[in-house]
């Protein structure tokens, strides 16, 4: 396992490929299921995939409690590695982190791709924009998360202790960062005009965690964004349809260069 050091914080990291830099910020669960997606991205980019603090075997400094901390950490990463014109890609929770980075500083970010991102509250106080994954029965949660759960979900009984521990740490850290307010920052929406980069908002057409309608509201809230549905995919389209998602990001990046 590789590690990446950002100041005092040591994170587990996957890196692959050559070319312009791409930082992929993963979602709350199914980290290892992103491998295929990452390999396909690596044909076009130098891909950096840190496992967030508290996740997997990444340490979490005691003071890291919010998505704000993660956003500053990854802005530090871009600075310390002197990465420029970065393609920033965020899935689910990672999309929220990416948005929090962009409202702070887009200096080193070239383009933003959000995949079924969380983090923004659009509905009223009695409307639930984001399904309560902690209150859904297990089988319904899987049906809402994946277009085809049988293909995407690992057989947990076959994991070794280290793999199982990494997954439960992912889930505990997701709860830590996202429990309340639930998977969003109430103040984020009012600052979305600061996301001053071209953004691509991708959404699984079968996402039952955050419906495509949320994605449409999100892309309309950004200064300069496009919206694209990924067919036959749930909350993690890059896991279920890696070719389509990589293709969409690659087309988007190429169009941006030509602009």
């Amino acid at each position: 396992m590789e590690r990446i050091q950002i100041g005092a914080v040591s994170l587990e990291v996957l890196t692959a490929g050559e070319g312009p830099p791409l930082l992929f910020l993963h979602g709350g669960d199914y980290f290892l299921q992103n491998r295929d997606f990452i390999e396909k991205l690596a044909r076009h980019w130098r891909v950096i995939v840190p496992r967030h603090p508290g996740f997997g075997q990444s340490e979490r400094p005691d003071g890291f409690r919010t998505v704000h901390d993660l956003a500053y950490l990854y802005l530090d990463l871009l600075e310390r590695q002197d990465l420029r014109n970065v393609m920033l890609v965020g899935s689910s929770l990672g999309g929220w982190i990416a948005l929090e980075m962009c409202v702070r500083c887009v200096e080193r970010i070239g383009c933003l791709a959000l995949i079924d991102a969380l983090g923004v509250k659009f509905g009223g106080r009695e409307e639930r924009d984001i399904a309560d994954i902690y209150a859904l029965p297990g089988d319904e949660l899987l049906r809402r998360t994946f277009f085809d759960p049988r293909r995407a979900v690992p057989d947990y009984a076959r994991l070794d202790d280290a793999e199982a521990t990494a997954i439960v740490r992912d889930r505990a850290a997701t709860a830590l960062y996202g429990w309340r307010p639930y998977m969003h920052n109430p103040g984020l929406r009012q600052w979305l005009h600061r996301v001053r980069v071209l953004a691509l908002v991708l959404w699984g057409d079968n996402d039952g965690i955050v419906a495509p309608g949320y994605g449409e509201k999100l892309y309309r809230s950004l200064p300069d964004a496009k919206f694209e549905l990924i067919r036959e995919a749930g909350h993690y389209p890059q896991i279920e349809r890696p070719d389509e998602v990589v293709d969409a990001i690659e087309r988007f990046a190429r169009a941006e260069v030509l602009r």
Partner: protein
Amino acid sequence: MKVWHFSEMAYHPAWPQLGDSYRVIIPSRLYDPKIGADLYHRYLDEWALCDELGINIMTNEHHATATCSDSVCTIPMAILARETKKVRLLALGMPIGNRSDPIRVAEEYATIDVISRGRLEMGFVRGVPFEISPANTNPAELTERFWEAHDLILKAMTSLDGPFNWEGRHFHYRQVNVWPRPYQQPHPPVWTPVGSPESAIEAAARGMVIGVLNTGWVRTPAIFEAYRSKAREVGREPTPDRLAYMALIGVGETHEEGRRRADQILGYSRTSGIVAPQFANPPGYVSPRAAAQMLKAGGAMGARATRVQTKDGRPINPRTMSVDEAIDAGLSFAGTPDDVFDQLRAFYNHVGGFGHLLMMGQGGLLNHEETVTNLTLFSKSVLPRVGELAG
């Protein structure tokens, strides 16, 4: 040894209408407040009777459940603080990691302590995992919040010179100044329920009284031993009054009568764990090591199912547990007064002694008359003998 009568004040009339969850998601239209009022009054009457019987009183709380209609443990205690005159009042207790305002907890407890003229014993509980959703507290921070609230409450009760500042991780006040201050000085005795040697060690380090619930013959000795060992290590003599054990107790004139009462009280054990699985293990609630084992075993329910065991280590299904199994497991003492005393003594000797017997003298469907008889018979025929137990 002190004996305490405990009931969860079950709202059992709804039980036949509940499916595979008795908690969290059940609609409150299944609660009939007219029946509920009758139930509250009868449970309070049973506790009030304890004042005459020489049995101390214990309440607890759970939320969004028909297994326990006491959702604020200090409310029945506030009533009983005035209605009783002699016995001690144990709230075991307040889920301080889930309450948003520890100062309010300090005020509630201090008020009860003063009204009862110093009879309160205050319990601080972390709460079972399915209390997380009703409170919507972050499970990954629960333990940390629990200890911060604990420290703040005790400081608030013992600071007598005006406001102090508290800017912690989870709680923020600039003028902490609790009125009234407690009747007992420096503060009422502090209890916490524990279910593992690890949590017993944390309690021992702070000199808290531990209430051990539903751990039985197999799991209790290691918990008590961990407590005693840690207490000695930090220079505190682990006197028996630091240790409490809960048992479901059915006393009768005959073996059959006592066991029949215990069988009804066991309605508590048979329903208590029935909860929709998604609420049984919120992420971060248990250690990564324990959570990893649950993940591989297909969830928390499997892990919970093996918690109750016979003396020889055979798992017992808590939902269908018989009286014989419960007695074998050390969860219940039942039969004639002699039976109950003999079972209690055997358990007492097996675990190395303890100073408090938390007697669930009412549970499940056991009705008022039966409960009164159960408590009265215990008071008359078992209570006088508990002094015979060593220690």
